[in-house]
């Protein structure tokens, strides 16, 4: 633990932080429950927002000081994708993985008949999805949903479809739906499947309306999911406050890296003032024991959510560049390599992560880039720095 007396004085002590109803809001919530904000001299009020657009607008308008954001969103906003260009930065990632692809029961049966079992990995279900799509049995029109245009959900969903030989632009329809409406839309047959963060996959499984076909971890091991976002101007006016906030959240992430603490976190998150959902829905993914279909035995997935391990707080520029490229691809554009590099460098502030890690006496990567498809298990980047596996599905060319 750092000596808080040696830290520069906070420019602002009372902060408002925005979050959405998701399992991976755990760091923001637990920092409060564990008194970590207070330890760093901050009085934080947590504001539950109903949409990412709301959260972004309030952050930009100064109604929120900082917020949990989808990893691509600071990049998209800095890029001006979707019509609004504002400098948004992140010096800390809050979590890795945490998403899954769920399809309707009918579609799940079709995939299982074609050998698509989630236990065999995302490639197996993607192949089965492709077989189904190219068979006579398929529905004339397939619709999938994701929670936001610029989210890892859409990118992972597209990747999964591509791995089944399906063109996500022409062969299927992908729409945006609020997470809370996904389960109902699936039950009513409006959509055939979706990619979303937990607990909205477990919710469909629990209600028996859908089955999980792939986890975010299976699609891309240990990819950035949520980041702590602030606007550029806010950071420049509150550098000391921002540092204290990152330290409090890094301690919360470290606490959450202990599997025993995850069950406690599930109990806390379930409360009315936070997610206001039954704890049974939150527990499977947080405990790393995912139930992929109702009535089935849980599958051990210890890295379904990753907090604080494998340098999970580090905002890798390699990951950022991939996300920025995907964002451009979605807009039907190609991002110039140099432009992409500089955009990510300005948005994903690895220097801010290293500054905070130094205060906590934690080692931080010296490089801003991590490899893809180089390691099937955890590995040592340099002495004392353990990273997780880095496999990512590769679509056929």
């Amino acid at each position: 633990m750092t000596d808080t007396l040696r830290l520069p004085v906070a420019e602002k002590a009372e902060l408002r932080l925005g979050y959405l109803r998701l399992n991976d809001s755990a760091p923001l919530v637990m920092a409060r429950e564990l008194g970590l904000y207070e330890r760093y001299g901050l009085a934080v009020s947590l504001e539950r927002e109903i949409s990412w657009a709301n959260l972004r607008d309030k952050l930009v308008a100064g109604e929120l000081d900082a917020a949990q954001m989808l990893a691509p969103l600071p990049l998209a906003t800095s890029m001006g994708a979707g019509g609004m260009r504002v400098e948004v930065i992140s010096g800390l990632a809050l979590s890795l993985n945490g998403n899954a692809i769920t399809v309707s029961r009918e579609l799940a049966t079709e995939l299982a008949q074609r050998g698509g079992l989630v236990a065999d990995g995302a490639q197996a279900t993607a192949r089965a999805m492709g077989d189904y799509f190219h068979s006579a049995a398929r529905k004339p029109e397939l619709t999938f949903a994701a929670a936001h245009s610029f989210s890892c959900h859409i990118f992972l969903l597209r990747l999964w479809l591509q791995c089944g030989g399906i063109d996500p632009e022409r062969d299927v329809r992908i729409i945006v739906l609020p997470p809370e409406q996904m389960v109902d839309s699936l039950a009513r047959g409006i959509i055939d499947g979706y990619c979303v963060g937990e607990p909205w996959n477990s919710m469909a499984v629990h209600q028996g309306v859908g089955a999980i076909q792939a986890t975010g971890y299976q699609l891309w091991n240990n990819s950035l999911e949520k980041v702590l976002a602030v606007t550029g101007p806010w950071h420049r006016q509150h550098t000391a406050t921002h540092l204290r906030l990152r330290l409090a959240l890094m301690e919360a992430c470290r606490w959450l890296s202990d599997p025993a603490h995850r069950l406690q976190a599930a109990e806390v998150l379930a409360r009315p003032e936070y997610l206001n959902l039954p704890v049974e829905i939150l527990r499977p993914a947080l405990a790393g024991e995912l139930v992929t279909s109702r009535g089935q035995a849980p599958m051990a997935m210890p890295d379904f959510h990753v907090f604080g391990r494998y340098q999970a707080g580090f905002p890798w520029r390699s990951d950022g560049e991939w996300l920025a490229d995907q964002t451009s691809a979605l807009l039907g554009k190609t991002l110039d390599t140099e432009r992409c590099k500089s955009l990510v460098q300005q948005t994903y502030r690895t220097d801010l992560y290293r500054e905070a890690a130094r205060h906590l006496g934690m080692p931080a990567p010296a490089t801003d880039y991590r490899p893809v498809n180089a390691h099937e298990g955890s590995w040592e980047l340099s002495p004392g720095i353990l990273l997780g596996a880095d496999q990512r599905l590769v679509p056929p060319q």
Partner: protein
Amino acid sequence: MDDNAERASAVAAGLALPGLEIISVIPTASGLLYQMAQQEPDVVVIALDSPDRDVLESLSIASSHNPRPVVMFSGSGDSGFIGDAIRAGVTAYQAEDIQPERVKAVIDVAMAQFSAFSDLRQELDRTRAQLADRKLVEKAKGLISAIHGVDEEEAFRTLRKLAMDQNQTLGEVARNVIAVLEKSRPERK
């Protein structure tokens, strides 16, 4: 787009200005895709607390004809304006070729209606609280007179004195009195 029908019609009425035409008032994003394609609106006004904003934004990405978020954040002079709108609980989307002043006029109207509604709600909350307090005071009066054998007027004077001595509202004192007396009172026969 607002799921509060009353507020939505107030905004619509306020917007009945020369040169503006209300194409459609809808409660949720279901059917939004169809509406956008059929009507091609220049401006969409939406309640901030609608869960469908991410849906609306995805439409503007899918097609260049669809309205995009009103961008006044980056303009140096007007950065406070959208902030005010957000605090009032409303935001808007505009087509590319619409003049900013005209959009601003639309948002101004919506903002005024949203603020009026929130004032109304606060007043309603206050009235409800007063009513609840009055009920508590009645109950406390009843308890005091039953237990101490005084008339209701005497009981009320006791309450008022307690409130003044403890620098509390009548409602607060009544609540405390009820808590204490109900605990100490023997089981009703």
